């Protein structure tokens, strides 16, 4: 009996050991080391306190990048979440063709950015297809990728590729609404609009927060779309934090990078705590 017990307590640690060991050695400890380094000078190895953070926060490129990143997330995420909800509702209403359209809207998620680069270039170039189309309406050609318009193209490309992801999240939220609610409403004579505003939306409200935070966290992967549009030298309007990191990496500004990585990690951690708090509230209800 005693032997059995001991094995029972040891087993989970054995299962977990390879993963936890690798994660600690490769990810966790190195990151803690990076946090430590953010307080030291990379050149002299001396403790410099918050000096690196001051340098980063006053850096013009950092400010540009943070500004653009915030502008992107504040504009893109609400549209993404709303558009995904619209798609989910449309899918729910379309009974027969639901499968085809669901597959369709999810497909861009699987399309590697690299395979559409040339197509995007031909579409948005100064002499490209979009301008060719607009010229019929007397619009002057615009270089979409190398002017302020690049920001808009980035937002649209991001929406194109990622709306399907949020759509799936909304669909599973819609599925969790009990059909009995709708039946009861129908008996009470509620019309479609009333059912939507009195049942569907309130029931989806708890999902809204989770989906928004997840979309926000996912939006850090926008670098791929930005690379699709701007390559290594993007227009100033789409110069994002991710570009800044890879530039600093090229010049091996280790102390600056450590400080900036710590700042980004703190921001992400705040978001995670916010999400956790919301989950906790949902459970207590």
């Amino acid at each position: 009996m005693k032997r059995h017990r001991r094995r029972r307590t040891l087993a989970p640690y054995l299962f977990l050991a390879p993963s936890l060991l690798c994660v600690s050695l490769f990810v966790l400890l190195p990151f803690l080391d990076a946090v430590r380094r953010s307080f030291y000078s990379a050149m002299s190895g001396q403790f410099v306190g918050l000096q690196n953070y001051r340098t980063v926060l006053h850096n013009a490129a950092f400010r540009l990048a943070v500004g653009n990143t915030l502008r992107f997330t504040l504009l893109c995420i609400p549209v993404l979440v709303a558009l995904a909800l619209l798609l989910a509702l449309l899918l729910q209403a379309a009974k027969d063709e639901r499968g085809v359209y669901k597959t369709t809207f999810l497909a861009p998620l699987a399309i590697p950015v690299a395979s559409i680069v040339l197509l995007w270039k031909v579409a948005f170039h100064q002499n490209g297809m979009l301008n060719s189309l607009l010229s019929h309406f007397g619009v002057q050609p615009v270089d979409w990728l190398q002017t302020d318009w690049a920001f808009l193209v980035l937002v649209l490309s991001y929406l194109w590729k990622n709306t399907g992801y949020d759509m799936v999240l909304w669909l599973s939220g819609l599925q969790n609404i009990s059909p009995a609610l709708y039946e009861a409403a129908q008996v009470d004579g509620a019309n479609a609009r009333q059912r939507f505003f009195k049942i569907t939306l309130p029931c989806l409200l708890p999902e809204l927060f989770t989906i928004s935070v997840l979309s926000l966290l996912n939006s850090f992967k926008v670098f791929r779309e930005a690379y699709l549009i701007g390559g290594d030298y993007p227009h100033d309007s789409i110069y994002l934090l991710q570009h800044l990191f890879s530039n600093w990496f090229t010049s091996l500004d280790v102390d600056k990078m450590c400080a900036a990585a710590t700042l980004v990690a703190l921001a992400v951690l705040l978001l995670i705590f916010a999400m956790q708090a919301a989950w906790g509230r949902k459970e207590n209800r």
Partner: protein
Amino acid sequence: MKKWLLRLGLFLLALVVWLPLWLLLTGALMGKGELLHNLSPVLGEGKGFASWPLLPQFPTLRPLVELLLDTPKFFVMFWNSCAMVAPILLLQVLIGAPAAWALARYRFRGRDTVYFLYIVLMLMPFQVTMVSSYLVLDRLGLMDTLWAIILPGAFSTFPVFLMHRFFAAIPEGVLEAAALDGAGGLRSFLFIGVPLGAPGILCAVVLGFLEYWNAIEQPMTFLKERSLWPLSLYLPSITAERAGASLAASLVMLVPALLIFRFGQRYLEEGISAYGMKE
């Protein structure tokens, strides 16, 4: 009347997805001459606007055949992509599945801490761990090798989280019955956990494949040597004169991703909605 509007709306929205895919296909089937003629305003000195016909005038498989038969460089890139993605997925499952099992089916000291840590790490963007990964890889002398991509990818905690969700959903009764029959911890995992949690493992594999087949940041940061670059990084940097080869290569790169998507769509959807499920 309303139904009609709904259908039109869905169709128009779907067109936004279908059109680029269709153009990619026709583009890869355009002959060299036709392609250059159509795209020269963008790629070279041509005047006027570029055009991309919905149907090629003279469809031909030549660009594809040339790419597959006479372009050894393409095979290197394709191989790099495979040599990166396959070990990552394999290691993710081999290391991650037991960890997910431990987190899902055992109560032990430190469990909640580890679980929270894994969630935090999984949500951290690449840029946060970029410097620290570099410092480790550099010390191990792994920079500029495929291992620089494989190892950080293999230790991602996202697959652990995903598989954990599915392992946790296995009914307790099944495991109790196995324990009564004398199955130990390892046997329960291998003969009950793995088969019953297989959808979770597949979710991790499908999402992992799409993620790493499309990897740009990691190889860009850790691979200076161009001969090691995967397709996902090489294709965007291809020069304009080789547009024909680029389009054919785009198609070849797209096909595995779409196939995995087509056959793994169910797992992709389940994997995405796993986030929504509460503990």
